[in-house]
């Protein structure tokens, strides 16, 4: 495979978008990955699942607003330059 840096940026944007569309109430709680399920006891071993749930929640919180800007810029650039 021949990768350019642009394909890396594209892949990163798509992955972050995919994480951002996972809705808290409608989807994650239904499969037991909601924020209220995940945060277990404050033992010394958080476990992989709670780390993942925390990661998803923090990515959604942090990247919500920048993703709007980045997606708009990408859409405009793709429309202009193909």
């Amino acid at each position: 495979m021949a990768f350019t840096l642009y394909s890396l940026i594209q892949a990163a944007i798509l992955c972050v978008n995919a994480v951002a569309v996972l809705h808290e109430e409608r989807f994650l709680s239904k499969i037991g990955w909601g924020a209220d399920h995940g945060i277990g006891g404050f033992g010394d071993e958080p476990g992989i699942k709670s780390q993942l749930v925390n990661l998803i929640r923090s990515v959604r919180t942090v990247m919500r607003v920048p993703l709007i800007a980045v997606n708009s810029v990408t859409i405009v650039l793709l429309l202009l330059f193909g």
Partner: protein
Amino acid sequence: MAHQGYRQNMKPRARGPSTMAGDPNQLFEDTSAGMPPSQPGGYPNQSYDMGNFSVNNIFGDSVVSDLAMAYGSNLANQSKEMVNKEINRFMPINKLKYFFAVDTKYVVKKLALLMFPYTHQNWEVRYSRDSPLTPRCDVNAPDLYIPSMAFITYILLAGMALGIQKRFSPEVLGMCASTALVWIIIEVLALLLCLYLVTVHTDLTTFDILAYSGYKYVGMILSVLFGLLFGKDGYYVALAWTSCALMFFIVRSLRMKILSTVSSEGMVSYNAKNQIRLYITMATALFQPVIIYWLTFHLIR
């Protein structure tokens, strides 16, 4: 414009080079006045000479020029400080300096270690007063000099290999470079993600992981070189040798860092956490030969 330049040219020409040297604001000897008039481009030359001289006249006043220079240097210092501060927010320069503090002896020993790690006894990174020793003093310390040099060498070698096979074009170099860079970034991000998920409390920073991932370029260079010198068989032999050496090196180096935080009694405790950490180390090690093969096989025909 042409007429004006020709007329005013008589005055500076008449002065000659002696008074030019005496002008205190002039930085260089103005030798354009002493050129022979028989030049074919003589006329455009003369108008350039006139323009140069008039610019010097603006800064003829010494007080104004001193003030301007002082203000300019002050402004430059301030902006330099601001730029440094902003860059330091994203990429700590001091930590980066640690990785480039190498010397020749270290580089030679490290390259030998990368290719033949089976006799090395002590794999721990030595500390001095709670901070790791620089690579100059400790062979086990990771550095970023070898990976970056090896990366550039790999790109040049790929260009040369393609040129030998008459498949070269300048875009190929760029594609090769960006492909290798993207794979490194993917590997570093994947390893960081795995280490975060398993909550390993190590002191492995991003730069450390970048360094350990970059050591595979040395293996790539050796494989391509042997492939160019000895054909396909040489390539496969070198690939096998460097893969085994690199896997051993990675497992021994990362085992100290990833697995040593668990317990004091050693690595034999088989709880799930420890097993996952072992799997991560083994996966990292196994990924190296795959990526070495992937990035170099198209260079050998």
